[in-house]
């Protein structure tokens, strides 16, 4: 379904976020992207959504080179992708309900469908009781779940979720992952960038690890780190000299 071939992305300010990246993702896969802060996970999502253009290389989605998409075709391409942005990107002036409904209005779903689907999705992410509120009236985790609801409401064939559990407590996070797994089972390809070691290790799904913009690992049933079990963190000694 997705073929990322020799993609390099250098931002106008000179930062190279991705270097010579090759990734093939088949329809129906569930892929984790992991990597340190600044490794290039969000950049990859932005390229797939064609929010940014690659500096070099090709990106084929369903056989179409999305770099060559015309401005006119862009909205229609994007409608096939549900996205949870790392910074949510909710419409600040719309209520939770309207934010989710917006994704359906864009594709001109009949009103009947909207009235049926939006409350159902909000119920799934546990926000039925907040549907009349504005994003600014929600907690961080609630906003994140609204973003997820908007991403899945149209049942898109591809779901890009950039740290969809970053602002969630472990229990809620697991519920969300459960939801993603469920959606994936129904045929949606799910790409999830994440830092949640526990989730990645438990799920035993494909893991692509990025480091400084390069793919350094691509395991079919992988874990967050290289070693299966990492040594636990040790607190610094009292009085240890520090750089501050």
């Amino acid at each position: 379904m997705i073929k990322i071939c020799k993609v390099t992305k250098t931002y106008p300010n000179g930062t190279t976020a991705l270097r010579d990246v090759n990734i093939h993702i088949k329809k129906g896969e569930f892929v984790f992207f992991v990597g340190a802060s600044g490794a290039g996970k969000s950049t990859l999502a932005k390229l797939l959504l064609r929010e940014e253009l690659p500096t070099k290389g090709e990106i084929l989605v369903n056989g179409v080179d999305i770099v060559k998409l015309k401005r006119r075709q862009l909205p229609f391409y994007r409608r096939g992708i549900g996205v949870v942005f790392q910074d949510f990107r909710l419409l600040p002036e719309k209520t939770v309900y309207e934010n989710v409904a917006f994704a359906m209005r864009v594709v001109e779903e009949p009103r009947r469908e909207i009235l049926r689907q939006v409350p159902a999705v909000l119920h799934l992410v546990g926000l039925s009781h907040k549907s009349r509120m504005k994003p600014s009236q929600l907690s961080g985790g609630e906003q994140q779940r609204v973003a997820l609801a908007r991403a899945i409401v149209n049942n898109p064939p591809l779901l890009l979720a950039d740290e969809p559990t970053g602002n969630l407590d472990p229990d809620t996070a697991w519920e969300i992952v459960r939801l993603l797994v469920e959606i994936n089972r129904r045929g949606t390809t799910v790409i999830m960038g994440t830092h949640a070691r526990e989730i990645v290790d438990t799920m035993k799904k494909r893991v692509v690890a990025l480091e400084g913009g390069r793919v350094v690992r691509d395991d079919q049933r992988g874990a967050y780190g290289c070693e299966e079990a990492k040594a636990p963190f040790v607190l610094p000694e009292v009085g240890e000299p520090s750089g501050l």
Partner: protein
Amino acid sequence: MRISTWEFYIREALLSLRRNGLMSLASVSTVALTFLILGLFVLLVFNLDHVAGTLESQVEVAAYLDPDLEDGAHLEIAKLIKEIPGVKESVFVSQGEALDRLRVQFGDRQDLLDSVEDMNPLRHSFEVKAKRPEDVKVIAAEIARLEGVADVKYRQELVERLFNLTRSIRIAGLAVVVLLILATIFLISNTIRLTVFARRKEIGIMKLVGATDWFIRWPFILEGIMLGFLGTLVSIQILNRFYYWFADSVYSSLPFVPVVSPADTLRQLTLFLFGLGLLVGAFGSLVSLRRFLRV
């Protein structure tokens, strides 16, 4: 396109008007204020033009008749003059009337005329008014060719000055109005651009969620039209009230000053401002959006 989508556009536009209270207020009041100033100047120019027209129509050609013409022959001449194209009206002034007028002109130096009283040297004449000052010359020539007319006079210099004056008034008035229209358009679209700018992030988000450019544009366009409509409404209301009041007070206190009658003028002005308001609102939104749709 589904009807429910259009409903959505309209609802969005209305909601946005209310939500962005400050920005809407700024736009509406900018439209209202600039249109008010524009409208006042259009009315001023209309009136100056009207005054100029009134002046123009008072340019006269004096046609002196043969002194030895039979009594009553002037009736025939009057008919011929009326048939000349461009003539607005002609008035017969008899010898006696001419002298009376001179007397009035002399004021307290009547003694000067006492000597000529008995042997009135003045002749019968016609005072002919042209519709437009540029026709005066031709009309004078036509009249001169009539039988029974001895001499034709008109104040060449005055006619030309008046002609220049009214033309300058018209050109200057038109120039000012055109400049004000451009300034108005600029100020309004500046304001709309700022309100769109404040919402550029939202526009980007919509595009990333799969909205087409037109899906994003329509609510903005409708909002722009509504802003234009509301602003025009306010300015038209004020202009109407003001102009009726103004025309009334001029009629009653300075009846000799010609004022353009309100009803017609205001109808035209209303149509013009509404057209301009809606257009500027719609196009202002459209143009302002362009930059932010490139996502």
